[in-house]
């Protein structure tokens, strides 16, 4: 046996070693008669660099050689032999000797994402042998997007994968939903399998997109069922880059650029503002603005303070990655690091990531391989979450509320930009503080440190049987810090609700996961044509979560910031700990006959601690068949058809995403008990839930029919998938009759259906000489239907929180309909003069036959808002609320075009969403001031409001808002959009210029994100869902504007 020490400079000796290995492993070959010597050089394409270590084999024999340092090889071959040249990561080439003595070859780098091998759960299969619906993400294209996380660039890339991010907050986490939501109240996030380890809620931002070698999305049950228990929402399989045999390759790329907001809202000018205020409150407005002989006209040309510009900036952004990867035949390594630094477009918001990674693979002898991976990431998110109102019940803690509401002029000598607040306009429900100063003083910091290490051992017991043992430990430490000084709405003494003075809080959480995944793989071809791969395995996983934290108030030394927390008075503390375990057995058989008839069957059994012992185990089978029709003789005449595969699969997958101890009967202790005899309140303990020992796995049955068609040697690749998913035993946070004394309980009840169609088309439109044009188009339609809810329930109603008066439910999810439909009153324009009787001049009495708008009839005047009286009872009340629109798109997709000419590559990626609506709640407040707040600026669109001179139906008159708190179709807008999401232009210097710099590649690039958007939506951005959930989609209120990014980059490979 040859033993080898790991070495970083193996390539130098590799040729000899390989030859020795070869001699040892291939004894007893007959040496044929007419031998001749063939030599040649193997070069890399493009560039022409000689490649050492390339395996050169005589086809059909076990004989071969490796190229030396100069890329040269020498072999003795028979006349008529064919040589095979292979090197990991490069496309295999074959050359017939055909009498030549010198056979030179260029090897082209193989695009991994286009590779023929697809990594699926617990193994990989040839693309041709796939039976399930698996989408491969083109990582090369995806990484052109200058974003923090792969999830930010995934939208529109893959059919059936819906990515919805709440807004543009740096560090925000988009939601990925595969083939529609299976669950109504629980998470719909897919299961992530990162380097073989399933994780439910990974910190996706901790993964540097540059580090991802391949990403495959398993969509149908045949593909996902091997992860049975938690796979109902689909599986994202991510393999990260590892070292490859070859000399150390250094990759360095860096880019720098900036982000800006493509659109801000047009606000009223000072003139329009005062005109509006005067209409609202003539007395107060005159007193304030019409002094010293000034009139409305005096403000015609008064400059406005543009508060939006004050809080927005051009946010610089930089991304840098460096990696060294290489290795010998037996030792492969990769070391890499990255830095992502984004300053948000809103001042004082940013996101940073530092990340380092190390991988090592070592072959020990012929049969044993070991490897390890270590990853460290540190994420820092800073800045107020713009779409929420932390630490206060006041609407003014929403950033955009403050910005838009603030007066555009002061009307006197007071400098609004310097003053901390607009003191005349502070009420308990509207803490109108200076938008700029408050943003500058906000301190919201979230730190997250993720450390993950995994190791594997793979042992070939026989040639056909491989044992693989692996383990991972993942630790995630999160810290959140909030500090509200006296210049923030939450800490200001000007806030009448603030009794805590300057205050702050810290929270820590620690999530530890370990897991072990072990498989035994058997692979054999019988009688040449029967190919069988069987995998069996066992896995176990444990998750522990612990949190603690406290808050302190009345911090005496403001200048100490968050570190002065110890000096304040603590007022609340939290500490929790919980955990869960999962244990699974699984197996899969892949069988095919001549790669023509394919069969896959999988089975998995999972036990979860989240269920009572009797209900703990769930079993998830699936089966799929596929037929590679192009192999059939009847298709042979159709020369154009290079691939035609029909796929059919059915299977059941599960979901256990409920709390860790939902089946237990729990008591919760609280200090908020009851005060007896004026004493400090006594603590209380109360039943928190009803024990449900019957709680069990949610099961989704999915049927998938797919067809892959490749034409002209796969220059045109077309895939269509039809699916139907029915989720049974829905793990639903089900409403209980309130007479039980409990609001909800987790029950396995309800059914949900998702059906859809996915189409994707990859084409090489032009490939002529140095010019190529490739396109990729995908579109997916998903229809989500609620089939059943908890006993007797016909619908769920959900409210979103923003303005307390608008707390009535905006969403309806009813049986027979998709989840999350908008529900409210239908806006019917504005009452016009014709709607009134006028018994005396200037007196208008609403005609008897016309319905009132929800306020008293007598109060209604021309110009007031009008709603449809659906049931015709003459009143507009809750019986007149109807479904007004849908939150889910009808279809969504992406269209990518890639042009390259010599070293120049241009790629443009369009992404769209069609048919969904957005509830633009900003307009409730800023287009008509529905809450009647004083001196609040409005959107410029409200200039076009009803008045005797302008009898429009677009907007109601000043003060004509009618009843407060009515959700109506007035602010429901078409949310469809088409977006030029990513554009990238790059230029690679020709090899001859860079060779002398010992470089193999030097590329300059310009890339842009969110460059152009076509939409009818009037808000800042149509890609918004500020309260994102299945039940409450498409809601916009004070969302962080999505930035347009422009980056200049440089990529160098050595």
């Amino acid at each position, binding site marked *: 046996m040859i033993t080898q020490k790991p070495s970083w400079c193996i390539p130098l000796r590799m040729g000899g070693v390989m030859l020795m290995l070869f001699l040892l492993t291939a004894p007893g070959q007959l040496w044929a008669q007419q031998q001749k010597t063939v030599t040649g050089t193997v070069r890399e394409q493009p560039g022409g660099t000689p490649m050492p270590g390339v395996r050169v084999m005589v086809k059909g024999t076990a004989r071969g050689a490796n190229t030396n340092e100069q890329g040269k090889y020498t072999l003795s071959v028979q006349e008529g032999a064919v040589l095979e040249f292979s090197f990991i990561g490069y496309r295999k080439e074959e050359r017939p000797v055909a009498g030549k003595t010198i056979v030179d070859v260029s090897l082209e780098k193989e695009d991994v994402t286009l590779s023929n091998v697809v990594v699926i759960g617990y193994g990989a299969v040839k693309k041709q042998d796939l039976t399930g619906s698996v989408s491969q993400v083109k990582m090369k294209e995806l990484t052109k997007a200058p974003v923090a996380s792969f999830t930010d660039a995934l939208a529109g890339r893959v059919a059936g994968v819906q990515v919805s991010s709440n807004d543009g907050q740096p560090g925000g986490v988009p939601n990925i939903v595969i083939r529609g939501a299976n669950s109504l109240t629980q998470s719909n996030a897919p299961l992530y399998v990162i380097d073989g380890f399933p994780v439910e809620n990974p910190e996706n931002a901790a993964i540097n997109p540059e580090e991802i070698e391949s990403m495959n999305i398993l969509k149908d049950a045949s593909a996902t069922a091997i992860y049975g228990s938690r796979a109902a929402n689909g599986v994202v399989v991510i393999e990260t880059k590892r070292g490859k045999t070859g000399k150390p390759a250094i990759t360095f790329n860096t880019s720098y650029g900036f982000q800006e907001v493509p659109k801000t809202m047009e606000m009223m000018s000072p003139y329009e503002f005062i005109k509006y205020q005067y209409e609202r409150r003539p007395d107060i407005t005159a007193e304030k603005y019409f002094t010293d002989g000034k009139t409305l006209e005096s403000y015609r040309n008064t400059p406005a303070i543009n508060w939006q510009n004050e809080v927005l900036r051009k946010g610089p952004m930089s991304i840098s990655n460096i990696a060294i990867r290489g290795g010998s035949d037996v030792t492969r390594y990769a070391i890499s690091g990255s830095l992502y630094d984004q300053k948000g477009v809103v001042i004082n918001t940013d996101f940073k990531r530092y990340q380092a990674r190390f991988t090592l693979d070592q072959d020990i002898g012929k049969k044993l391989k070991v490897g390890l991976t270590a990853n460290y990431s540190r994420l820092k998110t800073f800045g107020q979450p713009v779409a929420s109102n932390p630490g206060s019940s006041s609407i003014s803690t929403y950033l955009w509320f403050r910005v838009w509401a603030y007066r555009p002029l002061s009307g006197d000598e007071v400098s609004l930009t310097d003053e901390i607040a607009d003191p005349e306009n502070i009420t*308990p429900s509207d803490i109108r503080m200076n938008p700029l100063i408050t943003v500058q003083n906000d301190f919201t910091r979230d730190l997250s440190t993720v450390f993950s290490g995994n190791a594997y051992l793979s042992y070939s017991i026989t040639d056909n049987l491989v044992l693989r043992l692996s383990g991972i430990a993942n630790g995630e430490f999160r810290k959140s810090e909030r500090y509200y000084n006296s210049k923030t709405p939450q800490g200001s003494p000007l806030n*009448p*609700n603030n*009794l805590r003075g300057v205050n702050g809080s810290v929270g820590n959480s620690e999530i530890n996961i370990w897991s072990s995944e*072990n498989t*035994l793989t058997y692979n054999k071809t019988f009688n040449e044509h029967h190919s069988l791969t069987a995998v069996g395995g*066992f896995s*176990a996983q444990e998750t522990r979560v612990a949190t603690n934290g406290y808050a302190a*108030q009345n911090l005496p030394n403001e200048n100490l910031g968050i570190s002065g927390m110890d000096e304040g008075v*603590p*007022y609340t503390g939290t500490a929790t*700990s*919980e*955990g869960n*375990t999962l244990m699974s057995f699984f197996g899969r058989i892949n069988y095919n006959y001549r790669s023509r008839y394919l069969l896959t069957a999988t089975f998995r059994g999972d*036990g979860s*601690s989240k269920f009572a*012992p009797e209900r*703990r185990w769930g079993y998830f089978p699936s089966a799929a068949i596929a037929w590679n029709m192009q192999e059939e003789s009847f298709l042979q005449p159709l020369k154009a058809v290079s691939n035609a595969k029909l796929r059919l699969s059915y299977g059941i997958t599960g979901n256990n995403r409920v709390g*860790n*101890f939902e089946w237990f*009967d729990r*008591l*919760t*202790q609280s*200090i*908020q*008990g*009851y005060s*007896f*005899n*004026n004493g400090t*309140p*006594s603590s*209380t303990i*109360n*039943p*928190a839930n*009803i*024990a449900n020992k*019957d709680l069990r796995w949610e099961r989704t049955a999915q049927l998938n029919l797919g067809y892959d068609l490749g034409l002209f040697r796969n220059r045109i690749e077309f895939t269509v998938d039809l699916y139907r998913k029915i989720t049974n035993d829905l793990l639903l946070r089900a*409403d*209980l*009759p*309130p*007479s*039980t*004394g*409990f*609001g909800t309980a987790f*029950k396995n009840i309800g059914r949900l259906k998702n059906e859809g169609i996915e189409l994707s088309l990859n084409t090489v439109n032009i490939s002529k000489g140095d010019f190529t044009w490739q396109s990729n188009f995908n579109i997916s339609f998903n229809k989500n239907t609620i089939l059943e809810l*908890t*006993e*007797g329930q016909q619908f769920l109603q959900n409210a979103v929180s923003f303005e307390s008066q608008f707390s*009535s439910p905006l969403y309806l999810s009813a049986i027979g309909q998709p989840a999350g439909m908008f529900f409210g009153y239908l806006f019917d324009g504005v009452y016009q003069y014709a709607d009134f009787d006028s018994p005396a001049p200037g007196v208008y009495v609403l005609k008897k036959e016309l319905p009132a708008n929800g*306020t008293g009839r007598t109060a209604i005047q021309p110009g007031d808002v009008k709603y449809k009286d659906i049931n015709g009872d003459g009143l507009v*009340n809750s019986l007149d609320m109807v479904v007004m629109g849908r939150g889910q798109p009808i279809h969504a997709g992406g269209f990518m075009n890639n042009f390259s000419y010599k070293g120049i590559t241009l790629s443009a990626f369009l992404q769209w969403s069609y048919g969904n609506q957005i509830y633009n709640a900003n307009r409730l407040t800023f287009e008509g001031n529905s809450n009647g707040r004083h001196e609040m600026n409005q959107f410029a669109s409200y200039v076009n409001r009803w008045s005797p001179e302008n009898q429009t139906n677009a907007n109601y008159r000043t003060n004509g808002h009618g*009843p*407060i*708190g009515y959700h109506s179709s007035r602010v429901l807008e078409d949310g469809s959009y088409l977006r030029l999401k990513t554009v990238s232009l790059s230029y690679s210097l020709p090899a001859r210029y860079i060779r002398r710099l010992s470089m193999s590649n030097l590329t300059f690039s310009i890339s842009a994100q969110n460059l152009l958007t076509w939409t009818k939506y009037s808000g800042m951005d149509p890609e918004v869902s500020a309260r994102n959930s299945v039940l409450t989609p498409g809601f916009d209120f004070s969302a962080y504007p999505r930035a347009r990014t422009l980056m200049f980059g440089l990529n160098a490979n050595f």
Partner: protein
Amino acid sequence: MKKLCSLLAIIAVTAGACKDFLDVKPSDFLSSSNYYTTPAELETALTGVYNILSHSALYRGGVVYLNGFEGDEAYINRSTLINYPFTFDYTATNPTIENFWFACYTGINRANTLLQNVDKNTALDQALRDKVRGQALFLRGYYLFLLAQNFGGVPIFVAPTASVESTDAKRATLKETYDQVLADMEKAEPLVEEVTIAKSSRVNKSAVRGLLARVCLNMAGQPLNDQSKYEAARKWAKMVIDDGSHSLNPSYADIFIKIARDEYDIRECIWEAEFWGNGMDAYSMAGNNARINGPASSNPNTGTCPAYINITGKFYNAFEAGDLRKPWSIPNFKYLATGPRGAKTYEAPPTPTNVYLVNTGKYRREYETLTPQNINSSPQNWPLLRFADVLLMYAEAVNAISGPTAEAVGAVNLVRRRAWSKGIKAVTITSGGAGYTSAPTVSFSAGSDAQATAVIAAGKVTGITFAPDAVVGALTGSYTSAPAITFSGGGGSGAAATAAIYTEADADVPAAATATKESFLQFIQQERLRELNTEGLRKHDLIRWGIFVPAMHEVANMIQQDVGAPSYLQRFLSVAERHNLWPIPAKEMTLNRQMVQNPGWE
């Protein structure tokens, strides 16, 4: 193969361990199986049953909002609050109604859980367990009583909800529901503490007895009409009266000043829903009493109150001269937006039109002692049972049984005499004097309680005006005999006047009212308005007397006469028979397939 076998063996061994591996024990909460074993644990669980009283749907918010808003004495002046039933434009989906229903049943379930476990540790002292049991039983009965009043017959639960599956429950009849209330409270009565030990926050014997009287009166009245319960009502009220622990606070205003100061007066205030603190610590146990329903104030020194309730003309006109409950319940002042605590200006009596713009005034933040005051909450308790109520209930029960007996009239007189002014009733100018160039100083003999200024015209004193006062309306003093009045200064002389003072006879029930059973009942109905206004009792009093709808329409008529057709008219006009009960919440209707909706709400 050998290797394979050993591998399988390893897997098998690991799998054998899986049973334990999957048994993750909770580390962050307790289970009922390992609780309720020590006195402290029982007390902590009992606290949870009490906690519902301070629920936002009950006395922290919902009921504070509702009191009066739904009766004939007051209405909510906000057009923006659309989620409350007081507009009488609500449906079964109304969240306030649903929350109320849910809170009561949460309390019942907590009580049931405790009652099921109270005897778990039999080693604990029986008396201690009984005390816990008594309070839990009473509170269970009380929450069921609130449900019966508002919804009629409802599902009765006497054991904790055990399963998420079989959650359908049938409505009991109203009689069955009330019988359960009575059974719980009667069982609790011997178990709870004596009055002498407890403060008003904990249920004591008088609280149970007084509430039993209230329950019995409700049973005797509409819609159950079980006349036999008057006797029981009389009995329970009498027990409270005879207990000896209770008497009326000599000052009506002081009852509420004490509440504002967080002082107990168990003689008068037998049971209160407790609120505490100002939210500046870890606790959020403060309430909304006086924060929502007091006189308007935006002055943080006084304590802020957005004042959501305005009075009706019917309420304003219910009082006679000398009744000090009027100036306390209907403020004659407005708080100033700035200035020291309690800074106010006095207002002239409102015109009939403007009466409807006056806030209710019983609960006032200016007397709070806890500072700083939270602008969004107050620590003021909510009176659940007052001795005056017991006296009036007693009179009503006796009257129903044997007519306006001396005993019955005496009880009402007790309540009225306490409320009556002992000051100057009237002043007669016996001589205007002459030569006054400015108003002379007016002084009163026998103390300086009264304060007044003289009114002069043409050199003569033509009358006197008493100084306004926020507590008693005007400073007419307190006398046992009529004081002498003297005028001094003002440049003139010779003015003289005599005074007459209020006597007990002025306070006492007039003879006409005691003529018949019916007339006395009507008098008691008005007396309860005067005495117990804005204490959350009015609507159900009107309902049990069977006059809720006419009473509300009476107010509507008054508004039309006094004001015309203001926006709040509609809510009084809208009241119909179906409003005697709230609809069963839509959520219950949907999820409980055995539930039947109330008439008029289907």
